């Protein structure tokens, strides 16, 4: 199979004006992907499915990614020459900018006919709140239906053109999106014998440390380090 760079160039030649960007994965997996613009995503998907050299006829996986708002600090170094003739000073300027968050739908495509893949597609929403739309690829690959519903249910990505976009795992009355980074779970904590991390914080909130142990509870066992509470 051709490389993703070749595929991107072929797509750009075939669909003039389309947005196709190669997103590289710097990790060890090096699974690079193609970021498609929303306007021509479905035409490109149809092309990937029907092109005789590709025949990506099988969409194995659809998932979502939440990219929350991110504050990026950029440091610019400017060299200021010293008027007295000494060594030049380096002045650092820090500028903060807020990169708005967005949601992504990721598709993993394989070819059953030609036995190659995966080709990974990404679709990106404009933001995380009121414009969380991407075009649905269910009309292209029928098997995306339930997985796009799952991404809608857990991430809140609205797939326009989906034939039956309802919640699939949570109940219909549910309002939150549990797989988003800023999801706040209901506060129904109860004591767990091994609290750690976020559980420990909840334990401290729900069961505050008593100043003096009450009389009816047995005294705490001595700590192994020898320090008494």
């Amino acid at each position, binding site marked *: 199979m051709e490389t993703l760079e070749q595929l991107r160039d072929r797509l750009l030649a075939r669909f003039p004006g389309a947005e196709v960007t190669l997103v590289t994965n710097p990790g060890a997996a090096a699974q690079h992907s193609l970021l498609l613009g929303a306007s021509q995503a479905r035409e490109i998907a149809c092309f990937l499915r029907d092109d005789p050299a590709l025949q990506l006829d099988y969409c194995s996986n659809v998932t979502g990614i939440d990219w929350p708002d991110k504050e990026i600090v950029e440091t610019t170094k400017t060299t200021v020459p010293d008027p007295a003739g000494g060594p030049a000073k380096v002045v650092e300027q820090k500028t903060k900018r807020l990169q708005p968050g967005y949601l992504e739908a990721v598709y993993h495509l394989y070819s059953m006919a030609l036995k190659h893949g995966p080709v990974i597609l990404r679709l990106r929403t404009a933001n995380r709140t009121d414009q969380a739309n991407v075009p649905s690829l269910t009309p292209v690959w029928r098997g995306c239906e339930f997985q796009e519903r799952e991404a809608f249910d857990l991430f809140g990505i609205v797939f326009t053109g989906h034939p039956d976009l309802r919640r699939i*795992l*949570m*109940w*219909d*009355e*549910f*309002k*939150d999106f*549990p797989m988003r980074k800023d*999801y706040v*779970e*209901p506060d*129904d904590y*109860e*004591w*767990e014998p091994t609290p750690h991390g976020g*559980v420990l914080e909840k*334990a*401290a909130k729900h*069961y*505050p*440390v*008593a100043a003096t*142990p*009450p009389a009816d*509870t047995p005294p*705490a066992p001595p*700590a192994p380090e020898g320090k008494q*509470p």
Partner: protein
Amino acid sequence: MSDVPSAHPDSASGSAAPALVSDQEREELRRQGILLTKMEDLYNWGRSNSVWPLNFGLACCAIEMIAASMARFDISRFGSEVYRPSPRQADLLIVSGTVTKKMAPQVIRLWNQMPEPKYCIAMGACAISGGPFKQGYNVLKGIDRFIPVDIYIPGCPPRPEALLNGLIALQEKIRGQHLTGPNAPRHLRADDRCEYPVPEFGAHDLEPPANPEVFQPPTIVRTEK
């Protein structure tokens, strides 16, 4: 009829009046072909040896429950092989697996549809407390938040022998119940509670998230710094 159990220690100590016939005398009479027993013992003996479970599974624990009902482990040795497909005919609800919040109202509805006397076994870590999925957004932290549980079987999943052990423990519990008094089965008590409220699907969680009449979170006082 020779395997009618002798008086349970609980039932002997629970009644105020002294026993008219000692166990030894009853055994002597039985050898002579005379069966002497109590209505209570006979009733509980019959009930405890025909505990019919509901044919209902939720997750991987259900596979172990099915294994326990098959020939190798053979739950019919204990009179519980008649898995009933209808809650109207079942005596025992085995909550075998993870109870999601979406499934919880249906489980409670099934429990409400079962006639008294009925018993509940929470099988496995998930049914007891949520287990490995306890912090999941859609997992109920134990079915005992909504329905009273008689026997807890730990394990992930418990082996079929553990389920059989839990069933035997339940049979002992049934044999220890009285026809009157506070240790009577629910349907013989005045404070009969056959209906348990079914939670609604809320915007963020089940409403209410627990039934306060059945479940109270543990009170723990932390003393460590």
